[in-house]
């Protein structure tokens, strides 16, 4: 199966080879690499498609600000031999390891817990490792998350997402703690059950990417951050005073009120967190706590 990706050494003038890597040479190298992988890949794809019926046709978004030919975004097509249980991530890894090593995407755990590999697959936000190829119609179109800046190929800039997550003071900060260092805080089972779903967030950013409001208003905290605030505001261990402060954070101008209950966040969340429900509950909490001042 494995067909390597040998660098076909092209005849270049030796003088140039020896000189220190000039900008020009780098450029040529890039172009060379580009041409080679493209040609290679095409041949490969055609061959594979012929020899085996059982391949999956994937179309992957490509972009690299530095590499000639990739500066204008384009789609590359790969035909990946299908094995039972193959996920979108597996297909990408196969394409990278066998056809084009420069295919770039984040991934790590392969088990839906690190949150690295949220992509836009056939028009919706999905975790690559948790999405079976067999459930998708061909060709499978894989793009980076919408509404985020693309760094390269499927890699998007997550900084904005992280900033929003940090903006809600995402850390447990109880009004008081038990005295003894071996004394735990008590929490009822019901309360843990209440916050349980909200603690499952893996920071994949799928929800934020799916939300039209977040797309239009860059300052909107977004479903994941609001859910994070929910996780603390609803945890009885933190205490009333802190909860009020948390509500103040989320009911700012770009907080919960921006949410228009589109539900797409809830639909795409790979951890099945009822995001809209949490946002709505916080809206009501905020109204309740403000009514006191009226």
């Amino acid at each position, binding site marked *: 199966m494995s067909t390597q990706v040998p660098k076909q050494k092209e005849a270049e003038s030796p003088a140039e080879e020896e000189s220190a890597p000039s900008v020009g040479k780098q450029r040529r190298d890039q172009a060379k*690499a580009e041409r080679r992988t493209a040609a290679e890949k095409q041949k490969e794809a055609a061959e594979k498609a012929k020899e085996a019926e059982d391949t999956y046709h994937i179309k992957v978004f490509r972009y690299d600000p530095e590499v000639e030919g990739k500066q204008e975004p384009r789609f590359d097509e790969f035909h990946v031999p299908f094995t039972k249980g193959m996920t979108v991530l597996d297909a990408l890894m196969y394409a990278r390891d066998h056809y084009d090593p420069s295919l770039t995407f984040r991934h790590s755990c392969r*088990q*839906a817990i690190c949150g690295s590999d949220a992509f836009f697959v056939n028009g919706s936000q999905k975790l690559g490792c948790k999405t079976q190829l067999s459930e998708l119609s061909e060709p499978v179109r894989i793009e980076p998350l919408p509404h985020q800046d693309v760094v390269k190929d499927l890699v998007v800039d997550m900084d904005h997402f992280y900033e929003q997550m940090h903006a809600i003071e995402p850390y*447990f900060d*109880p009004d008081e703690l038990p005295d003894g*260092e071996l004394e735990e805080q008590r*929490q009822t089972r019901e309360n843990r059950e209440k916050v349980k779903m909200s603690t499952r967030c893996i920071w994949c950013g799928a929800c934020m990417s799916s939300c039209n409001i977040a797309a239009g208003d860059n300052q909107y905290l977004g479903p994941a951050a609001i859910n994070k605030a929910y996780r603390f505001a609803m945890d009885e261990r933190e205490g009333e005073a802190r909860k009020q402060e948390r509500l103040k954070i989320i009911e700012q101008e770009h907080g919960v009120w921006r949410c228009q209950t589109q539900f797409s966040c809830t639909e795409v969340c790979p951890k099945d967190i009822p995001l809209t429900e949490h946002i709505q509950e916080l809206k009501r909490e905020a109204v309740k706590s403000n009514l006191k001042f009226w």
Partner: protein
Amino acid sequence: MYEHDVIVVGAGGAGLRAAIAAKNEGADVAIVSKLHPVRSHTGAAEGGINAALRDADSWEDHAYDTMKGSDYLGDAPAIETLCKNSPKEVIQLEHWGMAFSREEDGRVSQRPFGGLSFPRTTYAGAETGHQLLHTMYEQLVKSGVQVYDEWHVLNLAVSDEERPEDRTCHGVVAYDVQSGEVSGFRARNGVILATGGPGQAFDHTTNAVSCTGDGQAMAYRAGVPLEDMEFIQFHPTSLPSTGVLISEGVRGEGGILYNAEGERFMFEHGYANNDGELASRDVVSRAELTEVNEGRGIEDEYVHLDMRHLGEERIIDRLENILHLAEDFEGVDGLVEPMPVKPGQHYAMGGIETDENGETCVSGLYAAGECACASVHGANRLGGNALPELIVFGKRAGKHAAGADLETAKITTGKRGEYELAEIDSPVELGEPGSRGDAVADGGAVAEGGATDGDSILEATVTAEKAKIEDLLERDGIHHSEVRSDLQKSMTRYVNVFREEDGLKKALRDIREARDRYQSVAVSDPSRTFNTDLLQTIETQNLLDLAEAITVGALARKEFRGAHWRAEAQERLDDEWLKHTMLSWNDGSPELWYKPVILEGEEKTYEPKIRSY
């Protein structure tokens, strides 16, 4: 160049804990991690954290269980430090808001785990690691520690003295994944490695793609010995197709293993007459493979783990995540059918030699977490003992690096105490072939003009790493992924649960061949932006070194202890082998030596007993 008091490499449980502890001591701390902290593999841990929290339990019992589990290859001072501090650290996590599962009375829940005499595995559903990692990251955000995420550490800047014990670590060199910039990170006080395990040396593993043992390889090349590398834990219940882990919690809650004939083989075939499914992991893994090898496996590959009898309510309450994993990664509904499982590489007991304070023999260099080996796990780690290791030793390393007073360690590091040298019986030449970059063969780079101050050493290391990267980008050659995948296959085939001399030697030959081929690898992606091709090529080099270390250790140790089973010697040989396997990188190839195990605890000495469950 960036400069801080303490540089923590890695942001999993150990790294985060170390950074928070150092920050609390008042140090200026930075974390450098190739992944954003919440992406670290600690998040994948499922089962729980062992801590003697209850009145009916005691840290002494925990220590005893751990020592027994380690098959008497753990060092008592490290084990006792772990067990004594674990309760406090677990409660600390609770005070930080970690969402532990709760009992009726509102206290944190604990469950039974393999090899434990008391149900002391504190858990948060079947997603304990996720909760732990996020809780600690939250506290990190609160504390304001500087995080350089997506910076891949390439090497340590270590001085170049003859003996590793005389060397000093001055910082690290890292590569900014987004921009391709190579930069020095000067550490005024110390560098803490918390880079996790080397699971990717195997192809069927529960570990993440990022678990490439970088820290271990870097420390190894800087002269720090690797300890007990042959002890690799194979988890008995990983999903056959992907290696995704099905937590031991399933068996802890009462899950049962069946073979193809529907026999509860742990009892019916006498593998563990008392504890059955809850015997230590090595015991269960061997039992499963024996069943499969004797033709009682399902599809000749796996056995069944059944939890249906636990009832939907209990499963959803305590093991919900398992249902999702089985469904998403194996297409099996755990509520209506048994789950297929087989052993998979899971954890490396060995690692960078440290003492109880996390210090290595190179001054200013610390290690904590899975990459380290203070030796709490010895020859076999008990489930639920890694997470407490992260927080206990992470914290100690952090504090020590930040200059806090800790008791002097009882464990000696490097060739400072008693030790014996040994010969390696290898069929091939070991170590780095040729001389591709001296900077790699040795930890540090010699500064121009022989300067020995930290800044110059760091500068020189940066220059060397830059040259290495340029070289990889410039040259033409083969792609690393073939080398890596052949290596992984060979390791899984020959250095697995059952090990034979011939197989191990074959593995060494394969590794040698892989090393030779690696000489001509090249990176074909020319980009400086997010070049994962480049980084993985570098990681593959680390895997080669570590795979070799694992195999050399396995070949040397001719006995059956803990996770290490040898066809040639099916017994634990305490007279000869109550000692740690040590490997030092010496001018580009491994040197083998041994140091004795410390069985003398604070109050008692642990007498090796027959280990039965």
